[in-house]
């Protein structure tokens, strides 16, 4: 009896050791998706995961990168920073070539040093300025930070909409606060300020208190910056109260806001980094295929993930080898064009901090769909391409 048990334990141990020693398929290149699959960030994480998966499928269909196929594995952060640190370490144990994620800024700030220490390039969906302020040479954004995004947004609000009396409603967490700081800063740069500055809670259901204060402020424009379903609830109540303000925002026009918000969303205008309704044909195509495959219209997070995966591809191909350090160098201060890598969808410039500059769109919601009413150029530039070999 006892001997049998010992033998059993030995056998199990042997199998375990063998599992560790035997190399995984050497041909494939592994990418780690570290995202908010459960918890409060689940909608965001689902988009991110599907965006990466679609990109990987597309890349593999076209023969992979430098002839090697991609494979992904998924790590769930539960939308919890300590857990994200744990799973990031776990992801690194699998020796991925690059890490795609996380989207929540509080998680990214907590886990990005780990990827940096391991020398694995990290492409994040976060937009907080906190991330690029740290001087981490290993982190890359696929979209704008709030710094660049809000510079473009405020430029549009001030110059195109000629808004004078602007009220701001934001969600009181790292995401919303970051946007608020930038919004106020760029307004201030133009000598302006908001007439009402109102915080809301995540998962808040009733916004009458905030909206009555907006009404009292006499604002003509209302900047709304919260999570998708809160945006939708807010818009429904705004329409109900019949407030005579023009709602503007960023993720306000995401399809994930429009779907639950319904009719109330019509008329909202946004500055968005990317959209399924884009006039860019490749972007439209990705949006269509995403919807076919996953049954929902991709929001900016879906596109961000798709583009982020292709940023890895573009950089590797420009370097000509799977060399993490060189790829990292190559991604800094460099311009990648959609002509060279169609999967990037648009030309993108990555600066020395890992922040990106890119064209973007002004959209308006009509008939529960966002329609592009204007294409906005890059914030800076012109930028030049740099060889990396």
């Amino acid at each position, binding site marked *: 009896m006892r001997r049998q048990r010992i033998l059993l334990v030995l056998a199990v141990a042997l199998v375990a050791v063998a599992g560790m020693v035997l190399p995984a398929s050497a041909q494939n290149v592994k990418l780690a998706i570290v995202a908010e699959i459960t918890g409060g960030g689940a909608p965001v994480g689902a988009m991110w995961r599907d965006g990466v998966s679609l990109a990987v499928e597309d890349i593999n269909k076209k023969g992979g990168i430098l002839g090697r196929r991609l494979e992904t594995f998924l790590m769930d952060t539960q939308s919890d920073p300590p857990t994200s640190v744990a799973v990031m370490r776990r992801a690194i144990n699998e020796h991925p070539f690059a890490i795609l994620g996380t989207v929540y800024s509080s998680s990214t700030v907590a886990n990005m040093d780990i990827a940096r220490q391991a020398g694995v390039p990290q492409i994040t969906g976060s937009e907080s300025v906190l991330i690029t302020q740290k001087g981490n040479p290993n982190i890359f954004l696929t979209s704008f930070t709030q710094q660049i995004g809000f510079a473009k947004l405020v430029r549009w609000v001030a110059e195109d909409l000629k808004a004078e009396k602007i009220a701001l409603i934001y969600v009181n967490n790292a995401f919303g606060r970051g946007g608020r700081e930038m919004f106020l800063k760029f307004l201030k740069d133009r000598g302006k300020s908001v007439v009402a500055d109102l915080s809301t*809670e995540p998962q808040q*259901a*009733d916004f*009458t208190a*905030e909206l009555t204060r907006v009404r009292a402020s006499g604002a003509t424009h209302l900047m709304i910056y919260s999570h998708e379903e809160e945006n939708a609830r807010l818009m429904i109540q705004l329409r109900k*109260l019949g407030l005579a303000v023009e709602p503007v925002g960023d993720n306000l026009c995401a399809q*994930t806001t429009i*779907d639950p918000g319904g009719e109330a969303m019509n008329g909202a205008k946004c500055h968005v980094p990317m959209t399924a309704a884009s006039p860019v044909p490749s972007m439209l195509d990705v949006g269509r295929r995403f919807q076919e495959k996953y049954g929902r219209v991709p929001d900016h997070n879906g596109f961000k993930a798709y583009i982020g995966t292709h940023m890895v591809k573009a950089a590797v191909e420009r370097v000509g080898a799977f060399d993490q350090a060189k790829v990292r160098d190559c991604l800094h201060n460099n311009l990648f064009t959609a002509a060279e890598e169609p999967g990037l969808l648009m030309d993108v410039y990555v600066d020395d901090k890992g922040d990106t500059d890119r064209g973007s769109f002004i959209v308006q919601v009509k008939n529960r769909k966002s329609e592009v009413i204007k294409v906005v150029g890059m914030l800076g530039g012109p930028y030049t391409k740099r060889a990396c070999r």
Partner: protein
Amino acid sequence: MTDVLQLFVAGVSIGAIYAMAAIGFVLLWQTSNTINFAQGEFVVLPAFLMVLFWTVFRLPFAAALLATLVVSTLLLGLLVKAVLVERLLKMGVLPLVIATIGLSMLIRYSLQQFWTPLALPFPALFSRAPIRVGEVIFTREELMNVLFAALVIGALQLAIRRTKLGWAMQAVAQNRNLAAVLGINVSRLVGLTFMLNAALTAVAAILVAPVYLVKYDIGIGIGLKAFYAAIIGGFNQIRGALLGGLLVGLVETYSAAYISNQFRDAFALIMLIGVLLLKPEGLWGIKEEWM
């Protein structure tokens, strides 16, 4: 003044939702001393069922509602009572608390995993066209929410006062052993209360869904607020749930408008702690020393 009234409308209408979820708490506590930490999810699951039957299977509204009621009564009422409560009730409060926390996680993550992590739209049942009374704007939806909550609570109060079953429930709440001596089957009654709670939360779900939208994690907030409402109003009286719900809704709305947005979640809590320390039986509750 307009604002004050407008905020009143908002506070009452959101408070009605809290009250609806709170009644179940009160009922369960009274008949079985169960604290259901999954109460929020008891609201969310029927909302998803309603989406399933109504917008996915395209049943007529009444049929969808009926199907939702039946399924949630069986699942959240009968099954939960038979599997969890029956066994755990004998072991004291804490194991049941942990088990209901586990149940809330189970429902939440299952919905997220097997259905969707995104918010689902839910058609408004009543018109959202603004109705103006002076400067104050409200909608038929809000009006119906409040009326509906008042109606349900009123009907329930009446049923508990007037029907034999209602009396039996009161009897068990007030003196369990004596109720047994009079031939009331306490265990069966507890089961019925669970089914009633499930039916109530299903009804609440239909009010909640158009406002909150249907998302797997909205239950956390609703459950907490319902809990505050039940304690503030009085854990041993159904009318207390109504009072507590309305108070929580109003305090939340007014304090956010006139005191501080940033601390809006704190005011209802401060009221709760105050009530607990000064009048632990709740504002409309009755001292339990009677019993």
